[in-house]
């Protein structure tokens, strides 16, 4: 479960105050709102990339408010994928497990398994330059999932995709998240995307978070 209580975060002159919401375990929460309203700031605070001024963030029952990003066990998929430009797709998928000290055999087993699940076996030896938008997002998703996180945060992961690729990716994210029992927090501007993927919807407006249910 992702639980945020009375969260206050400051990013330069921008500040959001008193944000509270919960995404139950195994569910897909979608956070919507106008550009610049602070959605990404909230997501970054949950991931440990923005310092929290006050409030509490609890992930799977563990208070992580003061933990550093790498100790929170979150997979993070940013808007543009933010792939590591000098690494092959194989190296990107192996990056997290390697940093976390997995054994060589375990990594060699995990990378092809993940590549097959995400349909990126054919591009394992390629570098990010020249990959299509859909391929980039699959790699970014795979890199985040490689260490088997219980929670995943996606920051407008499908905003740059064409309609056909978009639908395929929505289906892929939905199935991967459900299959592995992952709790997800997903930012999007697309009403349609939210309807397709959300178990819970939240709207951020004028610094206030309002919860809505998918009809």
């Amino acid at each position, binding site marked *: 479960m992702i639980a945020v209580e009375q969260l206050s975060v400051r990013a330069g002159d921008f500040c959001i105050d008193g944000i509270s919401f919960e995404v139950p375990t195994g569910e897909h929460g979608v956070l919507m709102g106008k550009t610049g309203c602070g959605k990404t700031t909230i997501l970054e605070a949950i991931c*440990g990339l923005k310092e929290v001024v006050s409030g509490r963030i609890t992930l799977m029952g563990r208070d992580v408010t003061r933990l550093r990003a790498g100790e929170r066990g979150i997979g*993070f998929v940013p808007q543009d994928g933010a792939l590591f*430009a000098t690494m092959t797709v194989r190296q990107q998928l192996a*990056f997290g497990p390697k*940093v976390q000290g997995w054994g060589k055999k375990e990594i060699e087993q995990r990378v092809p398994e993940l590549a097959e699940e995400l349909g990126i076996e054919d591009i394992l030896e390629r570098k990010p330059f*020249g990959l299509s938008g859909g391929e980039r997002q699959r790699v970014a998703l795979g890199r985040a999932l490689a260490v088997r996180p219980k929670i995943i945060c996606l920051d407008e992961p499908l905003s740059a995709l064409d309609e056909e690729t978009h639908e395929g990716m929505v289906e892929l994210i939905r199935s991967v998240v459900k299959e592995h029992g992952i709790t997800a927090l997903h930012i999007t501007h697309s009403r349609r995307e939210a309807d397709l993927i959300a178990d819970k919807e939240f709207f951020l407006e004028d610094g206030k978070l309002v919860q809505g249910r998918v009809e």
Partner: protein
Amino acid sequence: MKLTLFTCTVTALLSVMVALPIGYLLSRYDFRGKALIDAVLDIPIVLPPLVVGLSLLILFNKMPPWEWLGIDGPSFEEMFGKIFGPFMPEGMDAGITYKVPAVILAQFTVAAAFAVRTMRNTFDQISPRAEQVALTLGCNRAQAFIRVVVPEAWRGVSTAGTLAWTRAMGEFGPILVFAGTIRGRTEVLSSSVFLEISIGNLEGAVIVSLMMVSIAVVVLIAVRMWGRESRKKFVL
């Protein structure tokens, strides 16, 4: 010639080593005094070269920073001698002024400022997102910097190194004041040009100048070619 290659290479390496963390710090973090540091880094670029040399001469010999605070203590020159003196071969002392370390320091003062500027621009152009992803995957700041940022900044590093190297080769004013132009001891190519002119040997000065131009062109071509090769590897 040997001394020029040696001092320029040491200067370029030192400049890159200093420029990497400072450029990164200035690019990624906001902190109190950042504007001041930024301005201080430009001082060696905007000051007249002879003044840079004079400043170094005073700093290392006459007026160590602690003296401004009214504290008595050895100068940098004396400290350097005490630390490295015992390790020097027979007949050589471990001084700075009017010796090879002064040549390197004089070159470094200006070259490092250019290298820092280059590295800062490089880091400004690299999105911090990939680094943030690395942090969520378990890296600490240093690991994210070494594993993700430095490989992406590699072309900037080579540009900063080349710029520092060529800049060091062309440095003259600070060397003249701080290291002197002692034939066979602190004589680098730029000071050779000056020495040849001062004895009226214009032909010799032109030959040394042409050597400097050739070396600069070779270094630039080599780095460009190497950059192109590494870009191919980067893309494929």
